[in-house]
């Protein structure tokens, strides 16, 4: 008994706990400033200035918004299903956060004689894990919309759920083509392959495009934000929510955006690989730790570009109608993804 306890690597546990803490706080911080960034980007694209009163350049705006949400009255409708009503936002946040567990944020740090991996869990089915967690994300919306006991919320939740389920299919099919090339489901392995060879976006441009479109749909971002279509459904699935429960839903969307940007960067844009530089040679020059820091920076730059792209699309393209959404998902993206899969498979077979 004593021996098994001692044999357990307690430092590893501590290491992972610290890493989880860091990643969760960083994703929350990024989500916070995404709200600020979104408003700024929206303003710039509409020839406005955006928030610029709280702090220089409006940098304290997210704090003010958060404070406002905390100060609001917490309302739970009498006719709602109380437990599920509270569970909904929590679940949305949880699933948004959980995806970050398999994303490799950097190669590894070498500290105190240990190699500290910058990935919470290098599971060999990383992509399957992501898909599993992402499909759980539907429950946050569905439970919230249903528990509100409100026609509009329910309609929005059903619309959102059917949208997410439809686009998950095309997303999965587009990923299969990528997996045929990588031969691995571990995100770390996929990044390491891209460090040596080409970024997979060069090999799978169509697959990336389909994945990107589906990621927009999964995050309920604007061309696909049918579940919160303000002008059709008042506010969508979070209409009955107030105070920080509403904040959790809105925040979960931004965390989702951050994490899906990270996943896209990892799968198709080389993850933490520093572009145009041979990372292994750089390690020989500068040592492991500075390069690992640079790799984190490199990944974050890629993520920020994707987040900007999310916002850019949001303030450009109007929302799809429901039938257009379904037609795009089922009649365009899925056949395209299937064709892409077949072409990739044929190419791999032909090359031997």
């Amino acid at each position, binding site marked *: 008994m004593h021996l098994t306890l001692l044999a357990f690597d307690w430092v590893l546990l501590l290491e992972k706990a610290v890493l989880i803490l860091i990643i969760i706080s960083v994703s929350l911080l990024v989500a916070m400033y995404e709200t600020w960034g979104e408003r700024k*980007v929206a303003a*710039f*694209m509409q*020839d*406005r*200035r955006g928030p610029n009163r709280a702090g220089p350049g409006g940098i304290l705006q997210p704090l003010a918004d958060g404070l406002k949400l905390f100060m609001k009255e917490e309302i739970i409708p009498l006719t709602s299903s109380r437990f599920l009503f509270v569970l909904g936002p929590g679940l949305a946040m949880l699933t948004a956060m959980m995806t970050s567990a398999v994303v490799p944020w950097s190669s590894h740090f070498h500290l105190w004689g240990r190699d500290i991996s910058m990935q919470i869990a290098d599971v060999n089915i990383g992509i399957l894990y992501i898909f599993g967690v992402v499909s759980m994300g539907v429950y946050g919306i569905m439970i919230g919309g249903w528990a509100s006991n409100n026609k509009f919320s329910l309609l929005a939740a059903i619309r959102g759920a059917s949208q997410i389920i439809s686009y998950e299919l095309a997303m999965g099919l587009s990923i299969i083509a990528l997996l045929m090339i990588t031969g691995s489901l571990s995100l770390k392995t996929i990044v390491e392959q891209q460090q040596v060879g080409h970024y997979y976006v060069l090999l799978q441009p169509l697959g990336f495009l389909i994945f990107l479109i589906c990621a927009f749909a999964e995050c309920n971002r604007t061309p696909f934000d049918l579940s919160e279509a303000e002008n059709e459904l008042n506010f969508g699935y979070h209409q009955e929510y107030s105070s920080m429960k509403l904040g959790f839903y809105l925040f979960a969307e931004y965390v989702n955006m951050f994490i899906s940007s990270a996943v896209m960067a990892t799968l198709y844009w080389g993850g933490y690989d520093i572009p145009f530089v041979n990372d292994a040679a750089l390690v020989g020059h500068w040592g492991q730790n500075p390069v690992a820091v640079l790799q984190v920076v490199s990944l974050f730059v890629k993520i920020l570009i994707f987040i900007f792209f999310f916002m*850019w*699309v949001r303030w*450009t*393209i109007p929302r799809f109608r429901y039938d257009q959404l379904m037609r795009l998902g089922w009649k365009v993206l899925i056949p395209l993804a299937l064709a892409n899969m077949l072409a990739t498979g044929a190419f791999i077979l032909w090359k031997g």
Partner: protein
Amino acid sequence: MQPLTSRAKAVDRKPMNLWERMYIPAIAKGMSITFGHMFKKKPTVNYPEKQRPFSPVFRGLHVLNRDEQGRERCTACGLCAVACPAEAITMEAAERLPGEENLYREEKYAAKYEINMLRCIFCGLCEEACPKDAIYLSETFAPSNYTRKGFIYGKEELLIPNPVTQPEEFAKAKG
């Protein structure tokens, strides 16, 4: 029917070709437009820090004028109150006592002079009616207030600072 202008354009109802049905080029075009707008000059004026200049004929908040020796010009004749279409001006006259010659220019003056800024329509008729050049509309507007009472401006708010004792404030108020 004859088109009224040369700008009329027939609506194109041809079915879209494959290139158009892909939507990607159209989306790219739209996105380049929005991106271009990011670097455009913004028409917004950062209000409290920067203010748009008023035109010299702007009719704003009233000012009760003084002469160059710092004496009030108003004689409480009531012509401004008569001219006012909104009936925003009330006043009470008083007789100048001996020893007050340095305060009031003529032997009658306005002991109370009030303008209700919520009623005033800033037409400038009081300014035109005044035979003594005593009331002017300045280039500022009434600031916001929490109560209606706060919008009834008395002599303390309206009188321009004394040019003899407070030359700086006078110059500032004169603009």
